[in-house]
């Protein structure tokens, strides 16, 4: 992957924009570059953002009103589906959402879901992983996947690693708790994310993620065969 990875940001709140800008600038490796910001998807795509490696998109669910919220969610999910079908990588980030919304976003083909409070620890890694079709799973998204009825088969170890990760342990702590290496913990978490890409609506990004995972030896075809 050519560094820096270019990012286009769909967001209309100045505070959030400044926050992300400063996080990207604070990365010592300067691995990301923010090349476009706009409040609408079409505007971002029509400008230099159209060439960006990854789109970072806010779900803009500031409202608590149920009716309006559901309409906005459907619109955003439709936007994501369109972007994914046009072979773009999307990382969604949002204030706080229910499991259903997180799953809908992932089902549409988003590479990752990032809660706003997870930005500090996970923003850069999530975007980098999305650019390379590698699986990345911040803790909040992990919970939604673990409680999905349609989740794929997970081994006990995989489930435990994800559970502790969801509870907020650092990967090193998970490793110590489970008595395994930290790289194994990363692998377990990545495998769960990769397996989840097989679930639900077929999408280009999911297929790419799976292909990359198989290529990297993370999973093999048997892990993702359909359950009887």
């Amino acid at each position, binding site marked *: 992957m050519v560094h820096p990875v270019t990012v286009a940001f769909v967001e209309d709140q100045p505070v959030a924009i400044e926050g992300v800008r400063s996080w990207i600038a604070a990365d010592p490796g300067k691995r990301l570059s923010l090349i476009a910001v706009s409040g609408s998807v079409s505007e971002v795509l029509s400008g230099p953002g159209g060439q960006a490696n990854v789109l970072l998109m806010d779900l803009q669910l500031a409202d608590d009103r149920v009716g309006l919220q559901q309409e906005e969610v459907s619109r955003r999910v439709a936007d994501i589906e369109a972007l994914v079908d046009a072979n773009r990588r999307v990382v969604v980030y949002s204030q706080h959402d229910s499991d259903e919304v997180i799953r809908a976003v992932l089902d549409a083909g988003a590479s990752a879901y990032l809660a706003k409070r997870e930005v500090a620890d996970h923003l850069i890694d999530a975007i980098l992983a999305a650019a390379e079709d590698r699986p990345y799973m911040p803790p909040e998204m992990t919970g939604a996947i673990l*409680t999905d009825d349609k989740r794929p088969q997970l081994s006990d170890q995989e489930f435990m690693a994800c559970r502790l990760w*969801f*509870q907020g342990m650092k990967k090193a702590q998970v490793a*110590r708790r489970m008595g395994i290496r930290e790289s194994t913990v990363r692998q377990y978490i990545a495998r769960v994310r990769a397996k989840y890409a097989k679930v639900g609506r077929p999408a280009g990004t999911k297929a790419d993620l799976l292909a990359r995972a198989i290529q990297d030896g993370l999973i093999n075809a048997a892990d993702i065969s359909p359950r009887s």
Partner: protein
Amino acid sequence: MNVPADPTTAATRYVQAADRLVVVIVATWHLIYDPVAILLNAALYRSLLPQLVAWSLLAIIGVIGSVQLLRTTGSTAGRWGLVAAAVLAGAFSTAALPAAQPVLSYANWSFGAVGWWCVLLLIRRPVVELGIALLAHDTITLAAIVATGQADRVTLARFVVVCFGTGVLQLLPPVISRLLGGTATMAEESAQAEARIRGRRQASEAARVARVRRYQELRRSVVPVLAGLADRTLDPEDPTVRDRCRIEYARLRRLFAESDDVEDLFMHQLRACADLAERRGVVVEWATSGRVPEMPTRLHRALTEAPMHALAIAQSNARVTVLARPDEVAVGVIADASSSLPPVSIDPDVVVSNHQEGEQLWVESRWCTR
């Protein structure tokens, strides 16, 4: 008359029984007694035709009145019209008697009959109206007696006796109907009141038993701390003792939250524990995923025991997570606390794990049926 609309109550059944009795009386009278009277005295009539016409009229009125009466929701409008028609039919029959025939004779079959028609038609209306109708009919008969010059002492005496006797009989059905209905309604109401009282007593008994059980739990955990503080065997300056106090305070608070009527009792209790920590200034972060399945209260308590413990000793921040599936619930707390009193599981179905790393304490309470 206030007839209860519900056809299954005892009161309604009694009233309907009285109605049916009247219909049977009227039917029997008109189908057996009256035809027999007409036929036996056929020779005495100038012509049979007026009698047959009157009989037919009364038959029609009788059928209409019976149908209206037996249908429980019939209105009582138009009854007086039918009453008037019946009385007129009777008068017609009487007027058609030959002048020589005494009014108070067997040949005057309509005299006794019309009274029962009044009962049939007016049984649902106030009893006074029936009385008026009967009086009116009797007055007409009296007028007939006087008009045909039969008003001697014997006849008049007989008239009074007959009117009184049949009148009393005819007033009985409505009166009895009301008495029966009223008594049945009272019996029903008192039975319902008794059932209500019994139900309340059972509910309060169940509540008392539950309360006794709860206080027994408290006796094991909270009372020793209070007793120790009271008799100075526990030093309030000791941080371990302070931790214990906070834990027992949280336990009490959780106990109070148990009796709250909320949709998600489990989360409500967990939030009550977190609430106490927040009041102390601890920043509590939440992450929940999935819906907690129905569980008995003892499991609620067992699952929230260790998290409650960890939240009570957290110093400045804590992260609470709930991961719920139909066959598994895991509650985790990561807080900056050092546990000198590691939380343990109080229920065999719940596994408690903890892990201390420097200033950070991780506690997990897990229930799993797999």
